[in-house]
């Protein structure tokens, strides 16, 4: 265990945990958009920056990446921290003016107007890479990635085409903090709409009740991965018992 101070509170924390995790366990709020317990930390949204003091040196670090240390003094809302957070939210709002999650953060941080030119595209995707990390690390499909560099960065499948690797599981849509990816099941088809491409996948029909209940590719993927018999998913969960 290590002893650190967050916003004046002395806290005992488990070694190896990040400041963000420890703060969360102690009900200390730090905003974050690109962090999720299911995937490795990334440090890209910069909202979770906190100010740390070690000896005489003060600096800002991404609390989702920085692990706790003995004697560390953390301030989660110093002026320096707030200045960066406010600017980050203002930058993101210029990119995605209609996103509720950002408007809520802006209200929290006292950002009442955006001084920058609003982007015409009115993006929904903030490029937090939660979807791509979930697809790679959790699903292990690596069907989507971030393409292009810098201001042209986008989340997409290779060449914006129907991805062979995608199993249509929908983890990307589930983890997306801004609803930039949507899933809709219509009849025997699952439609996944991403910011720059749309893909359609066949759903499997339950041999008993006739309901289309899961993407065929996802079921094939699980059968292969878990070494199940080929007919393991012929029935939907309701008809299986």
């Amino acid at each position, binding site marked *: 265990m290590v002893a650190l101070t967050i916003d004046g509170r002395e806290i005992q924390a488990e070694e190896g945990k990040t400041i963000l995790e420890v703060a969360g366990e102690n009900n200390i709020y730090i905003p974050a958009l690109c962090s999720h317990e299911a995937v490795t930390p990334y440090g890209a949204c910069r909202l979770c920056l906190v100010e740390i003091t070690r000896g005489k040196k003060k600096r800002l670090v991404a609390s989702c990446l920085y692990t706790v240390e003995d004697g560390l003094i953390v301030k989660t809302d110093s002026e320096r921290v707030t200045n960066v957070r406010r600017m980050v939210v203002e*930058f993101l709002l210029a990119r995605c003016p209609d996103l509720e999650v950002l408007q809520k953060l802006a209200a929290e941080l006292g950002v009442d107007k955006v001084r920058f030119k609003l982007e015409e595209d009115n993006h929904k995707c903030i490029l937090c890479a939660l979807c791509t990390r979930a697809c790679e690390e959790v699903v292990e499909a690596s069907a989507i990635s971030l393409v292009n560099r*810098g201001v042209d960065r986008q989340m997409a499948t290779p060449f914006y085409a129907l991805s062979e690797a995608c199993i249509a599981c929908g983890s990307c849509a589930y983890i997306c903090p801004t609803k930039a990816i949507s899933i809709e099941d219509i009849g025997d088809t699952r439609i996944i709409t991403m910011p720059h491409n749309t893909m359609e996948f066949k759903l499997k029909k339950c041999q008993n009740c006739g309901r289309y209940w899961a993407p065929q590719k996802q079921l094939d993927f699980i059968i292969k991965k878990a070494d199940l018999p080929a007919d393991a998913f012929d029935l939907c969960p309701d008809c299986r018992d």
Partner: protein
Amino acid sequence: MAKKGKALTRVGSLDELERLRESVVKRDHNKPSIAVCGGPGCLALGAGSVITAFKKEIEKQGLDTNVVLRIIGCPGFCEGGPLVLIEPQNILYHRVKAEDAARIVSQTVKQGSLIDRLLYHHPKTDRKVIHEGDIPFYKKQRRLLLASNSRLDPNDIEDYLALDGYSALVKALFSMSPEGIVEEIKRSGLRGRSGGGFPTGIKWQSCRRAHGDTKYVICNCDEGDPGAFMDGSLMEGNPHSILEGMIIGAYAIGSHQGYIYIRNEYPLAVKNAAIAIKQAEDYGFLGKNILGSGFDFTVSINRGGGAFVCGESTALMASLEGKVGEPRAKYVHTVEKGLWNQPTNLNNVETWANVPLIVNNGADWYSKIGTESSKGTKIFSLVGKVVNAGLVEVPMGTTLREIIYDIGGGVSDGKKFKAVHTGGPAGGCLPPSLLDLPVDFDEFTKVGSAMGSGGMIVLDEENCMVDIAKHFINFLKSESCGKCVPCREGLKQMSQILTDITEGRGEDGDIELLEEMGAAIKDGSLCGLGTTAPNPVLSTIRYFRDEYQAHIKDKKCPAGVCRIG
């Protein structure tokens, strides 16, 4: 011509090395030689045909066995290219054309007489200058690293040996302990030359002490700053000095595998590095049981795909691993967990090239050169509106004025000096009032710029500082990897505001907004690209605020660059 890289047998001991060195010195180095610069600058000016002409002429005049023709790396004086050096008289001919080759061979090489037209004439006195070291461009320089570029064929390891090359490696392997080498580098005060200025010895020590059986050393030759060609020229002109530094570093740290990461846009550096590695392997300076010492070390080349951000150490390592070249936070240092999560010591080309000098001459000698906090020399690529553009190597502590005026010959076309941009695209613009600033890592940072890897762009009265800031921000915007929000979105917005200002749409409050954004981007970005990216804007606002105001309030560009209205 000297033999090209064919050791009859691998050098397996110190005695064998000394015998080889003696024979090389005896064989070639008292012969007259013609050295033609084959660096990119001179090649662009036609050095290729000059080289061909010399080859033909030497053969035609029956001198094949008596004269050595060397194609050398960049000696620095690019403005005077194509450059030709005649030894042993040390005659420098500049602006040489292919048709001059016949006369040079028949008159200068054979008879020792000078060709007036090809000599450099002092711009003030019009007095002709014969020797390389006497031209004003070189006089105030101290070319510890670059001087050898004039004296060796980078594709011939024996040239390097004749200049006492690999003697520092011998000293390190046979009479110093790894800890002793680290201590020597620490005491020398050498700081990283790629911009950060981190003490090299401390980095080595941390990597040496880091836990892990496999350790790596990397040479960063991903020099991406526009207008900068220091590292490329060292790699092209004297690759063995870099290899020697790397082998010594690897021995000190306990690494057996090294990588040179070179940007693919440097084909000559890639080629010369590859030849040097092959020759060093053939001769026994790389590979198993180096010089019979028992130490093993190999070096591989990895070519960069052209992303500026891959010069950042963590992005470089990601790229080397075959991943997308994006930086990660360095809360766990790369000396602990770097390439493939193993302890990794990355230094820049120029840093590595300093190592043999320090080992050979000692930390005490080295630390006498330079200022209190910045030791040794620094190479700058002096470009822009300056009379003598080229590569300049000066002791730390030399002032900007000395570099730009005494060495560079002042602003070109008699124009008025306005600023010098130092430290690459993410560096800053320094005004005339700071011309007496000494070259020093900390002094540059204090005034809002950076030493960076050594880019130095001279700007004159015809440059608009807002336009310059926009130029650099646009470069950085297109080179940002896009991972973190402040850098990706912030630079996009900065670029938009600067475009508006330069096109007459600037508004009251824009300057203050740029300052506020700059502070947040510096404080909030993930890697060194983002944390330094606002520098061109912040430094031009700091020193040339009136130019911004003229654009915004009066809708005028004082330099007449921006088309407003």
